């Protein structure tokens, strides 16, 4: 159960990304995980929910998208999805494959809004 350490790493990456936009509130964090990410989405969400109130992004909601495990064949260049962790090119049967997705936890995007909203004009 290492989702808590992944969430802490995620907060660090979100902070860095948010800082590029100036004074903002992070409202939404989108991540992608796949079959070789070694991340269970439910446990990830639960770790996020537990840790986020005391983080630098207390208003953020986590959206997890599950992506397939994909690879590129280094022999014939074919791009394919890896089913059942069988690392063999379906076109040329080569076992020299480079994983292109689904093996890490990827921070896809964050949605932010200005920290100090413009004062509303009272009518």
């Amino acid at each position, binding site marked *: 159960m290492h989702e808590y350490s992944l969430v802490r790493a995620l907060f660090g990456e979100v902070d860095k990304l948010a800082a590029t936009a100036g004074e903002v509130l992070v409202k939404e964090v989108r991540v992608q995980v796949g079959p070789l990410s070694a991340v269970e989405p439910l446990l990830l969400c639960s770790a996020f929910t537990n840790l986020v109130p005391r983080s630098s992004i207390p208003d953020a909601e986590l959206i997890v998208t599950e992506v397939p495990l994909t690879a590129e064949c280094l022999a014939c260049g074919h791009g394919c999805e890896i089913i059942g962790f069988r690392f063999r090119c379906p076109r040329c049967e080569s076992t020299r494959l480079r994983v292109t997705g689904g093996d890490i936890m990827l921070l896809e995007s964050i949605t*932010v809004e200005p920290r100090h909203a413009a004062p509303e004009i009272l009518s």
Partner: protein
Amino acid sequence: MNVHTIHASRDVMADAKAAAAKFRDERSRAGTLVVNLLSSPGAGKTSLLEATARHFNARRSMAALVGDLATDRDAQRLVRWMPAVQLTTGGACHLELPLVERGYEALETDAVSFLFIENVGNLVCPSSHDLGEHLRVVVLSTTEGDDKPGKYPKAFRTSQALVISKTDLLPYVPFSLDAATKDARLIQPEIAVLPTSTINGEGIAAWCEFLEAQHICLMNSRDEPTNP
């Protein structure tokens, strides 16, 4: 400025991986091969290291960092053979680089040929954490069953060698070396498979030769000029 989305497409572990690469480079320069041993609890990682030290018989310098949830029992066993520091995780299921770096400082050893990191017994979480190793080895004992590679794909996909331990028990357990090898190679076609027994000594020499070959590769790559 209104609500807007910033796209990143960044590995959450990118910083941790960069720090691990730095640790690896430092050990490379010192001529130390870092070996991260993964297995489920009781597969025989500590026994393998004892047998390795017995085989090398002080002809190779080595040290060990030993991950454990609660005790220093493994380090006490190993310290008879090599400098060893226990990394007690206080219940955490895997080692991370800061613990390894702190343990390495505590070793206070000159550059050794082999630095072994014995991970916490667990085939899931440790597979996601780069500890700055050159070589990741997964140890699978014959009592665990030959179907384990497919059940723990990340541990096997990210390892360069599979040590099958406790081969002395093969007559008594339903474990096929061929089936385990085939299953592991579906996931990691390049994986080296090394059957061993620390009880009767089978395969220990081959395992140590494998380590020596990896160390030679490291030293040769160190001598090659690096691109600016």
